[in-house]
């Protein structure tokens, strides 16, 4: 594994987006993973539609029957992959633009830009996550976002952060090895995370979270997606 890695430098990550006052982070995490997988497969970065997922995806988790994708009321990235496999694919942002509100489903199969063929969940060991990130592209992840409301910058490495209550979907785009930790007087490795709260939040829309401790549950809900040419 390289010491540090960043899919942004390779052109696999679209601009930071803004979900607005809508609990659609799961949709942004999903599109980010598909955008990255499609970039690796085709060499082209497409900006994909979250609104299609918000409007049209009602897929439910197989074991947690109440965990169904429900627009601005929340969802799961793995449910969204299942929906996209069944629906036939996802449209581009321009074809199905984001409104930040749940509306009538306007999906048109003839406008599909990327098809999803499969997906996997990644083991919780963080070196495995790094290996899959390097080999498969940006990964959809869930985390406990309790420290993100007040986050401005730097490597977040809270002394206590609940690992079990995952409430926010984001995109893992890379990692670094040398984020300085005042508390530990040494450089600490970190994850680079793309958020969907606009560029004015965090480090131009990104969050750095320390790596190697399962911090805030970052290692517990990680998935990669596979695409096929439409």
């Amino acid at each position, binding site marked *: *594994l390289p010491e540090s890695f960043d899919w942004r430098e390779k052109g696999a990550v679209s601009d930071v987006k803004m*979900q607005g*006052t*809508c*609990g659609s*982070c*799961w949709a942004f995490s999903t599109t980010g993973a598909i955008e990255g997988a499609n970039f690796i497969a085709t060499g082209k970065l497409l900006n994909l539609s979250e609104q299609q997922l918000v409007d049209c995806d009602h897929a439910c*988790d*197989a*074991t*947690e029957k*109440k*965990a169904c994708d429900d627009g*601005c*009321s*929340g*969802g*799961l990235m*793995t449910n969204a992959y299942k929906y996209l496999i069944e629906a036939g694919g996802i449209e581009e942002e321009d074809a199905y633009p984001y409104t930040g509100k749940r509306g009538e489903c306007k999906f048109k199969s003839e406008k599909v830009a990327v098809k999803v063929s499969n*997906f*996997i*969940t*990644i*083991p919780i*060991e963080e*070196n495995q996550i790094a*290996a899959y990130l390097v080999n498969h592209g940006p990964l959809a992840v869930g985390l406990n976002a309790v*420290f993100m*409301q*007040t*986050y*401005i910058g*730097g*490597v*977040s*490495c*809270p*002394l*206590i952060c609940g690992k*079990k*209550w*995952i*409430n*926010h*979907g984001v995109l893992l785009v890379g990692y670094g090895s040398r*984020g*300085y*930790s*005042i*508390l530990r007087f040494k450089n*600490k490795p970190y994850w680079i995370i793309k958020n969907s709260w*606009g560029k*004015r*939040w965090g480090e131009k829309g990104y969050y*750095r979270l*320390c790596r190697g401790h399962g911090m805030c549950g970052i290692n*517990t*809900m*990680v998935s*990669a997606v596979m695409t096929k040419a439409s």
Partner: protein
Amino acid sequence: EQEVILQVTGNHHHHHLLGTAAEHQFNSFIQEYGKDYPTRAEYLHRLGIFAKNLLRAAEHQAMDPTAVHGVTQFSDLSQEEFEGMYMGVKGGAAAAPSENEEVVAAEMEVGD
């Protein structure tokens, strides 16, 4: 015998945060993020939440010294409002992959 009259309503003209450093920061926040509150009562309500969030940011800073915590665009939202408006992963702990039926990826060689 002198009766004591207890105040049971909010006195909006003499809110305890008015004129404080917290209100000055709140006004800077309003300008920076283009916030607009339709009524005086809403302004005072958001000021109260903002002041609590200043304390919360200080707590986060103490708990998370390697990052910088402070005023963000979400500083006028209570934690409950923030979670309701901006977070949307369902299932919490139950959604962990080990409890799902999805295919878990094979382990890769990462020893070196």
